[in-house]
């Protein structure tokens, strides 16, 4: 039967319909990518260095596409999550250490998301001790009691708020020739702050949870090998969305904050980048965007962590199971949400430090994830004709090596900063 199906080439409308049916995993992952950490880093990069870091976003996006395409392809071809594949091909020890690293990294990321929640609602004068527990409870209920599909759609529509940045950028009337030039001209400074920011940009854009989450989402959608090219379009579109949003945030901040010499200390100041669009309502708009981004990620990160750990350990998992059937799954999810929220409420909490820790652990994990992914994607038994091609491998390994070098540097300097501060 399948061969017969393949011979029929779908018409254009059928193609569009097919694309819409498989669309989602790539776009959603990309939207979550612009989370609290992302918005913060992009804003800081624009405010502090103007357009100097803009050029890095292009190569980073290419690397992101390469990595995410590989994860989607493995999901489609094998029908298994990355956790399953790692467990089945590399055994218990490898899986255990990756699980530990992923839990720590995602816990740190979740803390950062709740910090984003606190910061955004403070703009509306809601103190953190009210906003954070309420939002944590809301996230918990939303994921456990709400319908997944509906929740995803709400978040996706809400992430349209990011359009505010491109519009604000246009209204700020930057010199477009200059912008275009800055987007493609590599500049390099050797001072520590510049390098640290560059690595921060890379680290926040390509994070390990994205590969795990996206592959799981592709598997859950039961996308067929026939539909692989539509999934690829989904992935590439998602990465381009990430690029446009990141680009606009950096540029908008460069055109406003950097030009006026304002360095970002508070969320209110970061919001000034939206002033050309929203005027005195800029901080509200910014707060909405940050709140949505933080909430979305605060829901998805703990969930995907719980999925990864329980699936690879062989415990029952999934929201369709009862609490008693899938204890480990529900406790992990609940634990990460509760701890993530509780840490933000600790008095005199070094939030910047926590963000740093989360970036370091992400950075430490990423090279391993990339290497394991590359080994899996080249496994003929697993991937058959869909294994990596020669030149794809060249690009992918280059990406991996660059990422490993950068993250090694990030980890080294991060650890140094942690020790010295």
């Amino acid at each position, binding site marked *: 039967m399948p061969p017969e199906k393949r011979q029929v080439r779908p018409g254009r409308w059928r193609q569009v319909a097919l694309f819409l049916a498989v669309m989602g995993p790539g776009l959603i992952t990309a939207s979550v990518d612009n989370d609290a950490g992302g918005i913060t880093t992009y804003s800081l990069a624009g405010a502090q260095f103007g357009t100097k870091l803009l050029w890095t976003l292009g190569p980073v996006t290419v690397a992101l596409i390469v990595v995410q395409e590989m994860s989607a392809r493995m999901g489609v071809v094998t029908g298994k999550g990355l956790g399953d594949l790692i*467990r089945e091909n590399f055994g218990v*020890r490898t899986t255990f250490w990756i699980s530990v690293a992923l839990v720590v990294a995602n816990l740190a990321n979740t803390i950062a998301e709740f910090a984003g929640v606190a910061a955004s609602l403070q703009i509306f004068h809601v103190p953190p001790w009210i906003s954070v527990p309420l939002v944590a409870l809301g996230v918990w209920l939303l994921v456990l009691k709400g319908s997944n599909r509906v929740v995803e759609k709400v978040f996706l529509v809400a992430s349209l708020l990011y359009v505010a940045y491109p519009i604000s950028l246009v209204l700020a009337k930057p010199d477009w020739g200059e912008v275009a030039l800055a987007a493609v001209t590599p500049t390099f400074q050797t001072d520590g702050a510049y390098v640290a920011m560059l690595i921060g940009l890379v680290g926040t854009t390509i994070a390990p949870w994205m590969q795990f989450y996206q592959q799981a989402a592709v598997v859950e959608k039961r996308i067929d090998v026939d539909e692989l090219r539509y999934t690829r379009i989904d992935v590439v579109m998602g990465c381009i969305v990430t690029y446009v949003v990141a680009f606009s945030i950096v540029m908008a901040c460069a055109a406003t904050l950097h030009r006026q010499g304002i360095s970002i200390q508070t969320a209110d100041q970061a919001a000034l980048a939206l002033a050309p669009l929203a005027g005195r309502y800029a901080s509200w708009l910014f707060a909405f965007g940050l709140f949505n981004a933080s909430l979305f990620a605060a829901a998805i990160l703990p969930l995907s962590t719980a999925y990864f750990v329980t699936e690879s*350990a*062989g415990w029952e998992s999934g929201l369709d199971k009862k609490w008693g059937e899938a204890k480990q799954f529900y406790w992990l999810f609940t634990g990460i949400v509760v701890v993530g929220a509780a840490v933000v409420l600790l008095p005199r909490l070094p939030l910047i430090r926590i963000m740093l820790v989360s970036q370091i652990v992400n950075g430490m994990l990423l090279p391993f994830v990339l290497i394991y992914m590359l080994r899996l994607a080249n496994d003929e038994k697993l991937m058959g004709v869909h294994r990596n091609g020669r030149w794809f491998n060249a690009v992918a390994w280059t990406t991996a090596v660059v990422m490993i070098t950068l993250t090694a540097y990030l980890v080294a300097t991060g650890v140094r900063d942690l020790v010295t501060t």
Partner: protein
Amino acid sequence: MQPLQPSEKFRFLYFTDLIGMKVVSSEGAPMGRLADLVAVSGEPYPPVESLVVRSAGKLWQVPWSSVESVNGSVRLTPGTALEPIPSAPVPDRLHLGQEILDRQIVDIEGAKLVRVNDLHFLETKGQLRVAHVDVGLRGLVRRMGWQRPVDGVVSMFRPAARYLNDEALLSWKLVQPIESAPGRVRVEATKKALASLHPADLAEIIEDLDRHQREVLFQRLDVGTAADALEETSTELATELLEAVPPEKAADILEEMAPDEAADALSELPGPTRESLLRAMERPEAAEVAELLEYHPRSAGGLMTPDLVELPPEATVADAFAEVRRRAEELPLVYELFIVEGGQLKGMVTLKDLVLAVDTSLTLTSILREVPATVRDDASVSDVARAASKYNLLSVPVVDEFGSLKGMVTVDDILAEVIGAA
């Protein structure tokens, strides 16, 4: 590991303890390390047939019969040489480390999917047989190489901990590997084992598997079990699975399914495939299903089954009982029986009415009650649900525009629709 005493008749070994063990010649000269074990898959407790040995970066094999002792290292009998691994795969052989360890298998007793953390062998009479699979936490700890310290710490604080005393070992006989072939001898046993699962459990297991495993498992089911399982899965998945088996088998499965479920599954298939499957099905079943396909899947017509008990008014209570018994196999849920005269629905009797009838020779006319509600074939799910709820019906009769009875929607299908939409 305890040295093997001559008096001991048997002992248990874990895969974790064996794997990576040094393989030495009878004189004790190192020959490599144990990389995997190959078992014959046909038997209830598969015996290990050969070892895979890694030596100088290459894989070799040694028959298990050449093993003299396993005691901290694997000692081979004098004159044993490493043999090259045959290039063509031998049928009915299981590479335990590669195909079973860390993979998902079906736990038949628990009716769920589990992941294999370790394998438990019984060594007796010079043979090593797979006895159990370990799916517990302790197996994971053992794989990490932490069993001793973790056991020590746990027994210090809670000597009665479940962790220490409750080994999560499943008998090999009660598990089903998915990705590896069951072995020719075991095909029938596999079918039987899978058929012993409740269709709803089997359906859930199938939902949890990845696409490849799902298709492999589904192909192993006999037609009846496959049909039962498909009735319990989502329509989307049923469609996917039907496409995974040869068309003739798909047609057989569809015939076995309740017509309304079969129509649902077919409705999602591409047109040409659907037509060819309908043609391959037996005539009466195909006609029923084809008729149901005309309706919108979420209308009363799409949900209804044509399998109902229809009796003339002059039939007796005894006739009614006989009719129910005769058709018990094919009927889904049966409670209300419908009295039809000249194509028109005249009334109904419930099983309760029949049981309570004073005399089995009474005609149905004398005990018949009015049908409290019927729905038209184009009615929506919520209309059907409302009728069932308001009049306490287990099955709601569906009529066409001329009032003739087309089928009934049973309450289980209504529930599935209502819960699914929530």
